[in-house]
C-alpha cells in the first residue's frame, strides 16, 4: 500500500509518453507531438492546463529540462513542443524517432491569466522561438474566438527559413477575424511576400483599444525593451502587458531554487509576468 502511494504521490516521478509525430520547423527547431502512454491521464491532463505553462521533459541518463507547451488545451489529446537543438538534452531529443518514448512531468507554472483576458483585444508579439508559448494562447483564442475582442499577431524572424509555423500562419492569415502580420529581418532568396524589417515595424498596423487590451510578448531578451516601448506608446497599462521568461529549472515546483529571481520562483510565480512585475522585481529581465 505504502509502496503504491510513494510511486503515485511523487511529483518528481516522470510520466511516460510517446512521440507520435515530429518534423522540422526550421534548420534547428523541431516540432514534437507526444501522447501520454497512460490512457486514463491523456484527457484530464491535456485538457486542463493553461496556455503559457511548461512541462519538464525527462530522458533517463541525460536529465530533465523545462519546455513551453505550444499546443492548446482547447485541442486536447496531445502535447506539442517546439524544441531548438541547443544543449545536451535537446541534442538527444533530436536523435529520437517517432514511436520512441520520452518522459514528462507537469504542467507547471502560472500560465497566462486567460480569464482576465476575456472581452479584451489581444495583441501578440513573437520573435524567433518566442512563438512557441504564444502559439498556445493564440490557438486558444482562435478556438474560443467569441470570447475576445480584436486579435493582432505580430511575428518576426531572421529569415523566411527561420520562421516557425510558417505554413500554419500563411493559412491563418486568410481568416477574416484575425490580423496576422509576419516580418523577416533579411530575405536572402528574395521571395518573401510580406513585410521586411524588425518586428516593431509591424506596430503601424495595430489598431486596438489600449485601455482594454492584453499585450503579450515573447522572444529573445534584446527584443523585450523595444517591444515594450511600443506597447507603452500605444497606451497599454503595465498590468496588462505580459511576458513569458526563461530560466534554468530542475524541479518546476518552486523547490530547487535555480530559477529564483529576487524572491520569486519563475517556475511557480511565472513564467508569465506583467511589466509591473518586471519593473518591481529587479533582475527579471
Amino acid at each position, binding site marked *: 500500500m505504502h509502496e503504491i502511494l*510513494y*510511486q503515485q*504521490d*511523487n*511529483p*518528481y*516521478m*516522470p510520466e511516460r509518453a510517446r512521440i507520435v509525430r515530429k518534423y522540422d520547423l526550421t534548420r534547428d527547431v523541431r516540432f514534437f507531438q507526444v501522447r501520454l502512454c497512460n490512457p486514463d491521464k491523456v484527457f484530464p491532463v491535456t485538457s486542463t492546463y493553461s496556455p503559457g505553462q511548461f512541462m519538464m521533459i525527462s530522458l*533517463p*541518463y*541525460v*536529465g*530533465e*529540462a523545462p519546455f513551453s507547451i505550444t499546443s492548446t488545451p482547447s485541442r486536447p489529446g496531445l502535447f506539442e513542443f517546439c524544441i531548438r537543438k*541547443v*544543449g*545536451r*538534452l*535537446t541534442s538527444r531529443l533530436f536523435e529520437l524517432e517517432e514511436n520512441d*518514448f520520452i*518522459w514528462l512531468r507537469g504542467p507547471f507554472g502560472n500560465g497566462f491569466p486567460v480569464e482576465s483576458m476575456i472581452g479584451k483585444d489581444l495583441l501578440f508579439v513573437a520573435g524567433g522561438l518566442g512563438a512557441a508559448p504564444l502559439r498556445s494562447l493564440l490557438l486558444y483564442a482562435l478556438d474560443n474566438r467569441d470570447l475576445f475582442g480584436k486579435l493582432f499577431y505580430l511575428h518576426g524572424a531572421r529569415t523566411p527559413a527561420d520562421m516557425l509555423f510558417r505554413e500554419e500562419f500563411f493559412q491563418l492569415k486568410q481568416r477574416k477575424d484575425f490580423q496576422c502580420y509576419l516580418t523577416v529581418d533579411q530575405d536572402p532568396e528574395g521571395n518573401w511576400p510580406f513585410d521586411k524589417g524588425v518586428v516593431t515595424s509591424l506596430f503601424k498596423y495595430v489598431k486596438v483599444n489600449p485601455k482594454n487590451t492584453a499585450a503579450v510578448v515573447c522572444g529573445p*531578451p534584446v527584443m523585450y525593451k523595444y517591444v515594450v516601448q511600443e506597447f507603452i506608446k500605444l497606451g497599454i497599462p503595465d498590468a496588462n502587458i505580459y511576458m513569458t521568461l*526563461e*530560466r*534554468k529549472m*530542475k*524541479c518546476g*515546483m*518552486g*523547490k*530547487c*531554487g*535555480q530559477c*529564483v*529571481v*529576487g*524572491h520569486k520562483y519563475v517556475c*511557480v510565480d511565472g513564467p508569465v509576468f506583467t511589466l509591473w512585475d518586471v519593473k518591481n522585481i*529587479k*533582475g527579471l529581465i
Partner: protein
Amino acid sequence: MRLFKIKKSNLFPFLRGLEGFGELWGPVRKGEKVVYARAKPEEFDLKALRTMIPAKKFLLPPKFTSLKFRESRWEDDYRPKRKVVFGLHPCGIHALNIYHRFYTRLYSDPYYERAKEATLIVGLSCVPDEYCFCYATGTSTVNEGFDLFLTDLGDRLLVWVGSPKGEESLKLVGKYLEDVEQKDISDYVAWRKRRDAAFKLKVDLDGMPEIVSFSYDSPVWEKMGKACLSCGTCTMVCPTCTCFDLEDEYDLKRDEMHRQRFWYSCVFREYSMVAGGHNFREARSERLKLWYTHKLVGFMSEYGAPACVGCSRCVVSCPVGINVVSVVRALRNERTAALWTKMEVSDA
C-alpha cells in the same frame, strides 16, 4: 502543555532509551569542529553550539538517489532510516520550521516528508557565545518544530513535549520522567534571564527587507563580489538554504540510472546558466545579491520573518568574512571589521 523533568544523571540512559525510535545522532567534537554524528550519548558534546553542517542534512541529505531508472521503468525506493537527532538549539529548530514551510508549500516534497516522519527532533538549550545573534532574528526560543526539547538547569533538565511523536517516544523512557514543581519553573525563569544577558554580538536586522531592496545598486555588492571565492561554503552551512540540483548518474555495475539529488549553491557560476550558454547571473556580485535578497527580503514577504536564524555558521565559515552580520552592517553604513571590506582586489 506537557512538561516533565529528568535528573542530569539520567540524561544518558534517557537518550539511550530513545534509541528505541531509531539511530541516535548528536553533536560530537572532531578536532576544532563539531559535527552531527552517530554516537553513544557519552560522546556527545553538550556544550557545543553550532555544528559545521546544520541538521538539514537529516531531512534532505547532501546527496541521495531520488529516482532509479531500470528495465525502462522509473522507481522511487528512497526510504530514510529512522533517526533520533539530539542537540538542536532553538535556531536550528527555527531553521527546520522554515524548511518545513518551504518544502511542504504548493507541491509537498515527498523525500522531505518521508525523512521528517522518520526523524525525532530532540532539542537542547544553549548559552550563546560571541558569535550567536539569534536574539536579533527572533529565534532564540522555540514553541514548535521539535518533538522533545530539553532545558539544562544544572542538576536536572526540563523535558518539553512538542508533538504527538514526541509524546509517543516518551513511552520508551517513561521511568526517568518526573513531574515539575514550582521551583523548576522559577529556576527556568532565572536561567532565561541569565541566557538572554549573555549575547555579545550586536547586530540589528530591523528594516532589512527594504534596506536590502533599496540597496540594489549599492557599491557594497561589487566590493563583496570581488572578494567572494564562489566556494559555496555559505550555502552549504546555512541551515535555511534549500537549493538542490538533479543529475543522472549511470551505475555500470547494476546497469541502472540513478537520478541524484544533491545540495547546490546559488553562488556557483553555473547556477543560472541556461542551455546555449546564456548566464543570467554572470557576476559574483549578482549571485551574492541574490543570496542576501533571498535571505533577508524574500522570506520576509512570504512568511513575515527573515530566513536567517542567527546561528552564525556563515560568520565562522566564510574565508573572506562575507556573512549576514558584515553585510547588514555594510548596508547600514556601519563600520565592520570583516576581511572583505578591507581587501584591495584587482580586476584580474
